């Protein structure tokens, strides 16, 4: 009742309640995976420039394609491609998780934790699998 009465008093001096933000919540895996989904989506948005460059270079000719291949073969290029691969797979798995939730399944506490864990473990494992297959397809690391 004391709070109710205090809330009824008017005046600019009383601090208004603020909506809780990031730093007030306890970190949890589901919370971090939710953030990862948005962040990977945001980074993939700009990462598509690599895909567009690839296609435009191929359409432009051997010299443009050689430039693209030189960049992607460099350490920076490989790191960007590794990040793009992981981001794409992580965002895909996170998206599948959201689609499962859209059917109102998998929302119990244990199921949420399992799905969050499956997203991160799955994305890292699948990224490694894709890169191993990629290097095998090229005939070993160069």
């Amino acid at each position: 009742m004391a709070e109710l009465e205090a809330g009824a008093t008017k005046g600019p001096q009383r601090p208004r309640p603020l909506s809780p933000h990031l730093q007030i919540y306890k970190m949890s895996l589901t919370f971090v995976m939710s953030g990862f989904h948005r962040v990977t989506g945001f980074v993939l948005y700009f990462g598509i420039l690599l895909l567009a460059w690839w296609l435009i270079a191929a359409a432009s000719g051997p010299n443009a394609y050689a430039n693209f291949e030189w960049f992607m073969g460099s350490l920076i290029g490989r790191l960007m491609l590794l990040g793009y691969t992981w981001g794409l797979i992580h965002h895909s798995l996170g998206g599948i998780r959201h689609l499962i939730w859209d059917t109102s399944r998998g929302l119990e506490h244990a199921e949420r934790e399992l799905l969050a864990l499956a997203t991160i473990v799955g994305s890292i494992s699948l990224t490694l699998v894709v890169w191993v297959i990629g290097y095998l397809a090229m005939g070993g690391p160069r």
Partner: protein
Amino acid sequence: MKDAQMRTPMRRVRGMGAAHTGTKDFWHQRVTSVAGIPLTIALIVIAIALLGRSHAAAVQILGSPIVAIIMLLFIVNIVYHMWIGMQEIIVDYVHEDKLKLAALMGNTFFCFGIAFASAFAILKLSFGV
């Protein structure tokens, strides 16, 4: 008494939301995410198949009808998904009106630019002009 005065804010907002397009974006984001699953797998397979190949071989593979069609579908689908997704991020974090409108406009320009440039490249590879 006018009908408008009898309506509560809740009634006005229900169904159409602040953007007046209802749940269209939500639903289209789901449609493009479902389509994105097989298309992303296909993109990864195509990318691996092209690793370390010469320009001539890359052109031949990317220009073949089935690969070109998959790439076109991937680009159009993913760009639409990106467009909605970035719009959602912008309206979540950018609250200043002018900045928000500029960001939303920039989002549209970027997405159309990527889509048309990539689609043009794929079609050029296919038709070999």
